């Protein structure tokens, strides 16, 4: 039988070694590849956030797994052994205190870190309600996202309120998505942008993002909204400023004849018909 002190030392050593092996892998291999990629400022900070969470978790995870495997191997009763009791240990004040202190420190660190990230990134790409507490300084391009069963349409209020079926945004400019719904609750999830905001009827839910790469991105509805929820997906595009200017000009020309039929731009719309749709 190994000595009790030896067990503790071995578990500690294995934990340190395991953490030393896993941590660099987390930081340098897994971390940079964490979703949702680095296409926008908020997406990059979500990647950082995911990496930090993994780093904080790593030592605890390694410790618990090492302990679990070690305990099952080292403290296992021999096969056929008659019932022998283990040591009547009922607790260990210092071990419990150490656990309490370390988990509390980790939790408080994560909460403070998450809050700073949330405020620094103006809601970190998440829907922040009609009046976000932090807003980006400088010029912002508003784009309205209107969810309905079962598609998204997009309005550009600063371009005469033109409404399109495709989402196109310029690179390098701060975008404010104003997400609302005509019927059920939807959720506008632009995966590579790192944006997710619920579309509630009668609510203007704002999410900020600044695209940094010209690329296409996936859009999916992330809140169950009825029959064709599974088909409510779309592709959006981040394009250069010049491309965006010409694209929006073409859309304005294209839709000029029907603009008078569209409701005036507003932060929310009354659905029609107002009652059960399905």
């Amino acid at each position, binding site marked *: 039988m190994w000595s009790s002190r030896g067990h503790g030392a071995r578990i500690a050593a294995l934990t340190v070694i395991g953490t030393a092996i896993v941590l660099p892998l987390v930081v340098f291999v897994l971390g940079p590849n964490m979703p949702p990629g680095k296409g926008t400022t908020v997406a990059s900070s979500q990647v950082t956030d995911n990496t930090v969470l993994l780093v904080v978790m790593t030592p605890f995870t390694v410790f618990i797994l090492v302990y679990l495997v070690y305990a099952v191997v080292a403290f296992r009763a021999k096969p056929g052994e008659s019932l022998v009791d283990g040591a009547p240990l009922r607790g260990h004040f210092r071990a*419990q205190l150490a656990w309490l202190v370390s988990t509390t420190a980790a939790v408080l660190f994560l909460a403070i870190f998450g809050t700073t990230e949330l405020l620094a990134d103006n809601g970190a790409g998440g829907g922040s309600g009609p009046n976000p507490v932090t807003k980006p300084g400088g010029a912002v391009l508003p784009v309205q996202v209107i969810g309905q069963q079962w598609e998204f349409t997009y309005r550009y209020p600063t371009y005469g309120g033109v409404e399109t079926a495709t989402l196109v945004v310029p690179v390098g400019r701060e975008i404010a998505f104003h997400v609302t719904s005509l019927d059920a609750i939807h959720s506008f999830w632009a995966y590579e942008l790192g944006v997710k905001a619920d579309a509630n009827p009668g609510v203007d839910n704002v999410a900020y993002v600044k695209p940094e790469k010209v690329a296409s991105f996936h859009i999916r509805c992330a809140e169950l909204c009825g029959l064709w929820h599974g088909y409510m997906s779309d592709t959006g595009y981040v394009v250069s400023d010049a491309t965006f200017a010409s694209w929006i000009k073409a859309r304005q020309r294209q839709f000029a004849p029907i603009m008078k039929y569209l409701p005036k731009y507003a932060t929310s719309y009354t659905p029609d018909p107002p009652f059960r749709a399905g």
Partner: protein
Amino acid sequence: MRRRRLVEFNLLTGVVLGVVGFYVGWWLGHLVKAPSLDYFDDTGQNDIALFVAYFTGVIGFLVGLGFANYPVQRMLGRPPSLREKETEGAGRYFRLCTDHKVVGIQYLIGIGAFIFIGGLNAMLIRFELLRPTHLAWNGNNYLTLVGLHGTMMMGMMTSGILGPFANYFVPLMIGARRMAFPRIEALTFWLLMAAGTILMTALAFGGFPTGWTGYAPLSEQANMGMDAYIAFFALVGLSMTLLGLNMLATVITMRAPGLSWSRLPIFVWGTVSTSVLMLLAAPVLISTLFMLALDRTAQTTFFDSQAGGSPYLYENLFWIFGHPEVYILALPGMGIVLELLPVFARKPLWGYRLAVTGMLGIALLSFLVWQHHLFVSGINADLRPFYMLSTELISLPTGFIFVCALGTLWAGRIRLTVPMLFALAWIFNFLVGGLSGVFLSDVPSDVTTHGSFFSMAHFHYTIMGGLIFAFFGAVYYWVPKMTGFELDERLAKIHFWVMFVAFNSTFGPLLVIGFLGMPRRVVTYAGYLQGANDWVSVSAFVLGASMLVFVANLVWSQVFARVPAAANPWGSKSIEFQLPSPVPVHDFDRIPTFGPDPYPYGGVEDAGFDGRRPVISPARPTP
């Protein structure tokens, strides 16, 4: 001498009166006419009739089972003459019976059947997801499967451990011969059976599209299957409230001499903390669903944003119930695991007070975190840091449970029996579940993971990997005690290993798939995720097959092989194992008294309860 009755009250009369009640209510409901309800006339949809039918159907079912007999006889001034206290025969399992042991076994089989149906739904869901495009089910049927799976599991598993095992063993563990309210105890079970049947009738009314959350306004648009969801969950809520009330009353008032709070076995503490949550959270669910039902029938507008209501109100109310609900699912599992580890490590529970603090801390904090389900909804956005903090704080009491589990293993004499394997697997699974939960609690990370397969995989790790694994640990630990017949150990080990590997092979990849951008509850998905989804589906089928191994084991060993179980096969020092298998009808010859230590392992022979000397004499014949 019992007078011979014209009609015996049992399950058959219950079902007959239930069906009769349903159709009477259906007819009555169609008599309701009002100008504001003309809307229903041309839709072929009559929610009022269906709600009335469910109500009268449940009343008929309960009357048919004999629940009205006692109050009616007492009102007429006659002695109650129900056979609810009968002591033997298989018939008592098909009647209203107030023996806590009979109710426990009824729960095990009844709930098990509905959970099996819920599991079959999961298999059908995974079958559809073998292809990124349409394969077998249309959109409506797929969503109905998703809704039935989620609702059935969330509804039935709330009582998955408290129903069978707490009803059976808490009275024994506290040295009582019954629960505080035995008739209510039976009522909680039969309400669940009525509820499960009602949920299945959703299929006859076009299914429902909302999943288990039932978010308005989608649930207000939905067709009549939605009413089945509402009736189901309201009945489950009622059952939970009564179960929690009954458990608390029992543990508070009926503990045997010497059994102070600090001497309770940890499973009783798990039951107590769960019961507190049930008693406080489930009524919110009932009220919320009542409002939803009024919106659907009486044209109130609680959740209609065009008429002064708010969908946020539903989300808020639902999650005020819904987050305690997930701890109603987690806490009994923790209780089971901490109860099993001392037995199979042959040690006292390490850090008993810390574990109790952890359970009560979880119960308290679980009421303060509900808006983390709404981080991106735009509601109370300024309060997100608070909910982030409170959610992350819950890892502290959860950490207490972990450290107590790990500490109990320290320097033990670990025997890897089947219940112990399930308990150890719980530690691993719940670790993964807890760590993945940290991503969901952190707002910037939640922006990607919210509403994705990641969150789905996360709560399957905590509920299936946590609760269901603990449930099976309890099944293998206690069922021989309950029925008196052993379970086959070889089949049990096959069950465990297939289940453990297939479970992780199913839900581990789902964490990744969610991170890669696949939302929950979708019938189609991006083509590049097909390989991973096929892997998950095949693993899920293997996971389903492992359940068949369990069912085969249960049927074979309990119906055909019938090897009598020893009184104490595990060498447990818990009181129920000092009684014969199965436990005799009157439980104890005399009420036991308890010493200071619920886990007297490790050479402290006299510290435990007095019951280690036989509390039932072998000489006395058991009825």
